[in-house]
């Protein structure tokens, strides 16, 4: 064995040694409880807002993801049952009862619901999906849980450090990519879209009049970019952590105040606590100690979580692949030509939050090639207002709707309908202009990961050719 091989082996051993280094299970337990609680609250809120009906029962047509066209909603009883299961499983996750089963159920059902209709895509739903996936892989139920009361032998006090590490890494990825996404001309140099959004709140008490000022929009834009790019490092550093967390709270509460982004700020505020020390979490959990103490006489005995090296290796492969995807997927947009915010090819699943103001109107025309006659479609006959809004600015959804119309008009008796769309889109307050080539017969175009040639280029200075 050469010296280099020896060194390499030692190096690898050191990394593995570091990853296996035992730490307290407390932060992980906190994450489980917090995640379950926030999810339970979110699900209840979703149901009470009437969104189950509005988003998953009433629509006549859904926009499934490419490759997931088989994912369909289950009707009224079905969808309410699905949300019932989500509520119960999130509660079980929080309590740590039948943990692996309940978190797996939650992940599958939640992801199923999100796959039904991409008009409901939100970055934080994606975030919830992947966090619940990661939670399946870890023993978050093996302390302060009903499972450990049921089966005291499950109880452990320590886990290898990588288990906390994967959640921190995931958070770092979210923040960094959200920051990188802000490094574009409109955001930094034009303060767009904040320049449009902030003055809309000019009637707010105290700060209202400030929001009308141009420099405030620039300040918020730059603050947001710098915040996203630096906050993970300040959170990782023990010395700066607590002050950084104050910034986390301020930042996310500010976004909650200005934008209609639902649970996202609160989920991030809670989840960011994973960066805090084991001591911090242990202290917080100690209020639960009283409940669990009587059941767990061996509380002070240190026991380490360990799984066989065979299972470890599988986990390592899964996680390496997972994080590779996490790092690469947001950059897939580089493979597509054209102005990215305009074409939105490769936009989703990349932590692009509140980055642009986009609005559109799409007129669909169905032509009978045999007679040359055409008719105009009333979108709202088939789509909810939210679906119509989302569809109007996103090419893949325009194509899906065109295909739906093709089938619809075939049933109405047109043998081979030609589907054209005349759509106008405004991006970041620049006047609306033609978005899709209105001569393209969308009924003949197929969805794929290849660039869509029928998206017209965004011309910065050219006025719309109406």
């Amino acid at each position, binding site marked *: 064995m050469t010296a280099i091989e020896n060194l390499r082996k030692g190096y690898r051993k050191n990394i593995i040694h570091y990853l296996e280094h035992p730490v307290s299970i407390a932060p992980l337990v906190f994450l489980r409880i917090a995640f379950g609680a926030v999810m339970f609250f979110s699900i209840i809120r979703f149901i009470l*807002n009437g*969104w189950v009906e509005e*988003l998953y029962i009433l629509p006549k047509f859904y926009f499934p993801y490419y490759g997931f066209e088989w994912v369909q909603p289950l009707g009224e009883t079905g969808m309410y049952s699905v949300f019932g299961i989500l509520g119960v499983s999130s509660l079980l996750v929080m309590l740590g009862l039948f943990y692996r089963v309940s978190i797996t159920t939650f992940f599958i059902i939640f992801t199923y619901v999100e796959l039904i209709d991409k008009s409901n895509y*939100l*970055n*934080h739903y994606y975030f919830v999906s992947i966090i619940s996936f990661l939670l399946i892989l870890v023993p978050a139920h093996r302390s302060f849980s009903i499972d450990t009361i049921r089966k005291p032998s499950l109880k452990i006090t320590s886990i290898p450090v990588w288990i906390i590490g994967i959640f921190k890494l995931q958070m770092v990825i979210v923040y960094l990519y959200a920051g990188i996404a802000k490094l574009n001309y409109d955001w930094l*140099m034009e*303060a767009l879209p904040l320049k*449009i959004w902030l*003055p*809309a*709140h*000019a*009637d707010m008490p105290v700060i209202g*009049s400030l929001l*009308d000022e*141009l*420099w405030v929009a*620039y300040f918020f834009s*730059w*603050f947001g970019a*710098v915040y996203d790019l*630096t906050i993970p490092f*300040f959170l990782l550093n023990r*010395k*700066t952590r607590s*002050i950084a967390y104050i*910034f986390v709270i301020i930042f996310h509460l500010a976004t909650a105040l200005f*934008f*209609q*982004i*639902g649970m996202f700020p609160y989920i991030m505020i809670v989840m960011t606590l994973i960066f805090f020390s084991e001591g911090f979490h242990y202290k917080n959990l100690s209020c639960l100690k009283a409940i669990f103490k009587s059941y767990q006489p061996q509380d002070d005995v240190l026991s380490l979580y360990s799984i066989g090296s065979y299972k470890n290796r599988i986990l390592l492969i899964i996680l390496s692949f997972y994080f590779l995807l996490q790092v690469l997927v947001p950059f897939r947009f580089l493979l597509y030509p054209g102005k990215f915010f305009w074409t939105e090819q490769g936009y989703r699943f990349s932590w692009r*939050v*509140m980055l642009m*103001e*986009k*609005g559109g*109107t799409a007129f669909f025309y169905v032509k*009978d090639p045999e*007679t040359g*006659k*055409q*008719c*105009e*479609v*009333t979108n*709202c006959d088939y789509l909810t*207002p*939210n679906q119509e*809004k989302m569809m*109007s*600015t996103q090419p893949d959804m325009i194509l899906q709707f065109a295909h739906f119309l093709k089938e619809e008009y075939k049933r109405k008796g047109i043998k081979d309908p030609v589907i054209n769309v005349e759509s*106008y889109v*405004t991006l970041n*307050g620049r*006047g*609306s202009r033609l978005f899709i080539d209105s001569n393209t017969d969308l009924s003949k175009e197929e969805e794929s990961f290849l660039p869509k040639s029928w998206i017209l280029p965004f011309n910065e200075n050219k*006025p*719309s050719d*109406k």
Partner: protein
Amino acid sequence: MRYKIILFFLILFTGSLIFVSSCKKKNEEENKPEFDRKGMLTNIGNNSIIPNYEKLKTALQELDTAVTAFNASPDLTNLSALQNAFKEAYKAWEINSVFEFGPAEQEMLRANLNTFPAYVVKIESNITSNTYSFDDPDNITTKGFPAMDYLLFGVGADNNAILAKYTTDTDAANRRNYLQAISNYIRGKVETVNNAWSPSGGNYINTFINASGTDVGSSLGQLVNQLNQDFEMMRTPKIGIPLGKQTLGSPLPAKAEAYYSGISAELALTQLKAIENIFLGRSEAGVDGSGLDDYLAYLKAPYNGGQLSDAIKNQFTTAITKLQAVPDPLSSTVQNNPAIVDAAYIELQKLLVLLKTDMPSALGVLITYQDNDGD
């Protein structure tokens, strides 16, 4: 270390601010006056919505008087007076159609008063049986202005034949009752809404003025949403469908609004002008006050190298001119001269894009209640 991070942020922000402001040309003027959103709502509410509802209420009172007079002595003079009163009331309604939020939304005014085309068979069976309830959802197409349009203009070939239906016909008495019942129904609905707006009644005007945010439930949000909805409900059912836009170009003249009285184009024009008035903040008396155009101008929303507010104003003018060129009855025009209707339709479409896409985007108004993390 804590101070270091604060210092880091501070230096970065001030640095970036100085950088940005030095990059920017200094033509962004200082101390621009703030736009008074509440003032705009006050203007639209007090000078447009309330007086227009009052005007509609008066027109409906006159219609009701004409109905009573006609029913008391059904003759040609009273019929013609009633027909005129009806046309005036219908026009007054078109002006108020856009205010479908708050009290009007609660009464579902637009659906209850103006779902067309009227379902003639059901109207006739209601008259014959003389038992019906307008609150029954099945009766949505047997009441309101479209039903009255049929009853006053469509039951006979000319006014003599129409009159006979109210005098010598076997169901004459029932028909007179039905006419009165519709008049009462329309009046009742509008007076409920009118009272709800009035400061001495439900005082919704106060709610309207004070909901001065930009969220979906705000008055601005509702105004923008309803302006668009009302516009689309004018463009498609009143012009597009009769023109055959949804039936491969085959016109459907009988689907026109006010098919029997034949004032469809005039009604659509009235409605378009009413929407323009809201956009301009023009009062019922015709005074141009604070409106959405002023708000857009204040925000300096750009369009094609110019101002969005000007673009929309000009497009309103163009669309109104083109619609004015469409002669009534629309049901004949869509068959004899579809090109002239199509020309108006195209301009309406251009206007729709501006109102539905550019305006809400520039105002930062949300259209749906759902969570939203970017567009």
